[in-house]
């Protein structure tokens, strides 16, 4: 079963929620849709589910029109960001609800409910009402209901965004195993977190302002972001992007003294460029670019140091947890061999060499 969207557009109150969205969702693949809040990710899922109409465009399922199929005949399961369950039903009946609607035999319902609750680790909570469960457990109930249906389209709208991070870490790891044997189902998962998109996705679609701005295998999107916008979206913290110039074999970036053009950028025409550098490729050093620390964040096991050099803000990602004071003067080392070069409109011109990868990629 393949879903094919062509030119889907939806605007309301002068805002484009979807703009000319064309994409193919293939069976047995996990598609992650990454974009910032309000990029149109939720709207896209709602259109695929039949919960929202579009202004124009077409949607087909195995070549047959799917836009006019009502929600209840789409064989689609969805898990919302908010933990949505039926408040009046206990966990068992919550999971059984769609199976009863589908008119399955009693024993079959029983079997699937048991099985899917066991898989999400809620076998002992069958008698509870959703309101008696923690947020993480409520979301597991919603996932169990989606699992039990064995639906042909599975949609996940930032399912773990409202959970705290230890739980998110755990569920994210379980997720791939849970849905690895969904056979021919089309699985679509939206997120704002690049690590999640990369880790879960067989295919990554990047959305921005209602458009799909890039789609491809995770490493393709990550290693060769088509534009500066994509580069910012698929990196957390966002990729540092700053203006610069190439003049012969000299390169100037962010108003800093000129240096030699690194090997991978050799042969680029003279002129103005935008350069990109991942937060992991800017580091604290004993000497280098001087900047002032404006903010420090800690994320899991990394420290993100935000600093301003002249007028250019930088963010550095440093492994481990470090105590860096606000307002401190620091030196940053930019790694020229890791520079991405974009033209003035923001389209990718040259990317740094990719590392050797065991499987997939080059």
């Amino acid at each position, binding site marked *: 079963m393949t879903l094919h969207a062509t030119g889907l557009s939806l605007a309301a109150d002068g805002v484009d929620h979807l703009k000319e969205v064309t994409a193919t969702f293939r069976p047995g693949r996990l598609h992650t849709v990454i974009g910032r809040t309000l990029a149109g990710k939720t709207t896209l899922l709602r259109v695929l*589910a039949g*919960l929202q109409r579009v202004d124009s465009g077409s949607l087909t399922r195995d070549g047959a029109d799917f836009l006019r199929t*009502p*929600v*209840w005949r*789409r064989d*689609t*399961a*969805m898990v*919302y960001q*908010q933990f*949505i369950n*039926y*408040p*009046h*039903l206990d966990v068992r009946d919550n999971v059984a*609800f*769609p199976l009863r*609607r*589908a008119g399955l035999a009693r024993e079959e319902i029983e079997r699937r409910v048991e099985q899917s609750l066991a898989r999400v680790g809620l076998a002992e909570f069958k008698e509870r009402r959703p*309101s008696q469960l923690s947020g993480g457990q409520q979301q597991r109930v919603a996932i169990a*209901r989606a699992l039990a*249906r064995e639906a042909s389209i599975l949609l996940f709208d930032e399912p773990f965004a409202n959970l705290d991070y230890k739980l998110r870490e755990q569920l994210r790891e379980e997720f791939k195993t849970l849905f690895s044997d969904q056979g021919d189902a089309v699985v679509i998962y939206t997120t704002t977190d690049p690590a999640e998109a990369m880790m879960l996705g067989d295919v990554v679609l990047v959305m921005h302002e209602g458009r799909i701005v890039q789609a491809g295998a995770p490493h393709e999107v990550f290693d060769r972001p088509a534009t500066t916008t994509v580069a910012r979206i698929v990196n957390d913290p966002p990729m540092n992007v700053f203006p610069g110039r190439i003049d012969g074999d000299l390169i100037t970036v962010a108003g800093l003294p000129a240096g030699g053009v690194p090997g991978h950028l050799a042969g680029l025409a003279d002129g103005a460029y935008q350069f990109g550098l991942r937060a992991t490729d800017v580091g604290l050093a004993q000497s280098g670019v001087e900047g002032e620390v404006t903010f420090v964040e800690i994320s899991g096991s990394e420290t993100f140091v935000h600093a301003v050099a002249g007028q250019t803000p930088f963010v550095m990602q440093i492994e481990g947890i470090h105590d860096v004071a606000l307002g401190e003067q620091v030196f940053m080392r930019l790694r020229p061999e890791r520079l991405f070069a974009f033209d003035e409109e923001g389209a990718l011109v040259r990317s740094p060499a990719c590392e050797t990868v065991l499987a997939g990629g080059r």
Partner: protein
Amino acid sequence: MPRLYPAFKYTVIALWACFVAGPFMWAATTSFKDANAVQGGATYLPWLQYEPTATGWRNIFGGSGGVDVLGPFLNSALVTVAASAISLVLGSLAAYGLSRFRYRAGFVKNSDIVFFFVSQRIMPPVVLVVPFFYLLQVAGLLDTVPGLVIVTVALLLPIAVWVMVDFFNGIPREIDEMAMLDGCNPLTAFTRAILPNSLPGLTVAAMFCAVFGWNDFFFAFRLTFTEIQTLPQAIVALNSSIPPWWTLSAAALFGISPLVLLAIWVERYLSKGNLSGAIR
């Protein structure tokens, strides 16, 4: 100062309690008096101040010199239950539509439609009674139970719609959506996913309907004559030039008893926490 405050608080509460309970006390004592005791000034303590008799109570159940309130009671019950049930069914369907779908006719939007429903209760009943009279006459339903049920539905429907719209707005829309994704069409989504979660709202709406339906006097008075009579009508009919206060009191207490029982039941239901917290 801090010691005075509780004293003040409880005095105010006690005064208010007397003010509310006073008329009931009066009616309760009067219903057990005879003509002499009633004429003998304000007395409240049975056996000490007057000799209690059950004449008033016997009178309302067909005793000599009284009326039978059982017939009117059944009429009232029939009209109230039927009209409330119809109003709840139609009202929650209408409210669900108003809560979930957007309607627009010119400048008229959902909120205007809800206001239109409620506005029917703003008009003085006198304005409505003439058209109702005419319509029932044309349909041949004057002085009949079905006629009175229809009129009462018209009165109760706005209340049901108003209460239920507010309640449905509080149920996340995602629950309907999920039900439809789970294979329900819009109607089964309503009956299987939304209604079971709406018991608290339905209870409140049903209570309002019951109270307003039960207490209606004006329309019953103007639209029924000889064939049927409702309880409020029967009670008022007792009020002749020399009112039999004991019978009147007994009838009045009997008339409000179903509402008191209903209130006690709903209150218990409320305190068990069944109403609040059903959603989240």
